[in-house]
């Protein structure tokens, strides 16, 4: 049914190492759910059979940052929690990406008050922002697809010097 149906005899394809690595990376994004508040419930729904994030190769939610590729920050980040989020992000091996899920994470959302960081881009490099409060599961899947497009363009040597 898949590519193997096209195989006839000893066929071969030509490509570059960069493209193969980028293709492999984008097809197996392992998310680390940084579930701080209610958006995390919606992230669970994304993993459920109805929406089924595994269709995009991103179903393996890793709760250890050392095994994850993309951190999905799902919830309101307070100034006290920001130190924890940043420390966990620093523990992820490169290459790594960040999805800011929901209004609170992206901009502070309805929590326009002194203890809430008004957008996690003040201390994290965010790749994709997801709108919604909380976002629909479709919206997060869209974010994963957009991130895959971004990962597809990366080259392996871009991350050579990174930790």
């Amino acid at each position, binding site marked *: 049914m898949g590519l193997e149906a096209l195989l006839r005899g000893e066929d071969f394809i030509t490509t570059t190492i960069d493209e193969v690595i980028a293709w492999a990376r984008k097809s197996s994004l392992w998310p680390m759910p940084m579930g701080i508040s209610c958006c995390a419930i919606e992230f669970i729904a994304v993993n459920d059979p109805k929406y089924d994030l595994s269709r995009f190769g991103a179903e393996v939610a890793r709760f250890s940052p050392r095994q994850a590729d993309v951190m999905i920050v799902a919830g309101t980040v307070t*100034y*006290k929690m*920001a*130190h924890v*989020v*940043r*420390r966990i992000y*620093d523990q992820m091996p*490169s290459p790594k990406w960040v999805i800011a899920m929901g209004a609170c994470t992206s901009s502070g959302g309805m929590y*326009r*008050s*002194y*203890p809430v*960081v008004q957008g996690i881009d*003040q*201390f994290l490099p965010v790749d994709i922002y997801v709108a919604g409060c909380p976002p629909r599961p479709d919206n997060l899947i869209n974010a994963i697809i957009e991130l895959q497009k971004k990962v597809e363009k990366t080259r392996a040597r871009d991350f050579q*010097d*990174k*930790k």
Partner: protein
Amino acid sequence: MENKITNQAVLDIIKEKFPNAIENFEEFQGDFIIYVKTEFIHNILKFLHYDENLSFEQLTDTTAVDWATRKNRFSMVYQLLSMKNNYRLRVICYVNDDLIHPTVTDIWKGANWQEREVFDMYGIKFEGHPDLRRMYLPEYVEIHPLRKDYPLMGNPGDFKLPPIIED
């Protein structure tokens, strides 16, 4: 289940023991509230807790109110529950201007964290509290955010963002 004791009975018991302590009392939406003088607050709460007829076993909540422009700026509010009588009572008193207030942790152990929260949010210092540290905010901050003169969005630099380590 109905209350086994009336508001008037509670008032009479307290008045008999502390004739000068009660400044005012009222009933608001089914809650009985008594306003007492600050110098009597610790003795009254101790009496309410240990008295056999009243027996307020539980301190449901401790909080404070910032009145901003009043002379005695803060009020302390004690919310009591007597499980024996199925009766709730609210005791309110002013906090002196030096913001030093007697603790009730020697009466109810549960007041420990409640008073730490009040200290965190209002800056009222509880004399005799065993461990008066901030409850919610980081330890380095110097603000008391529930005071009326603190802006909603805070002041720049009150809270620190994490340091950014470049790869």
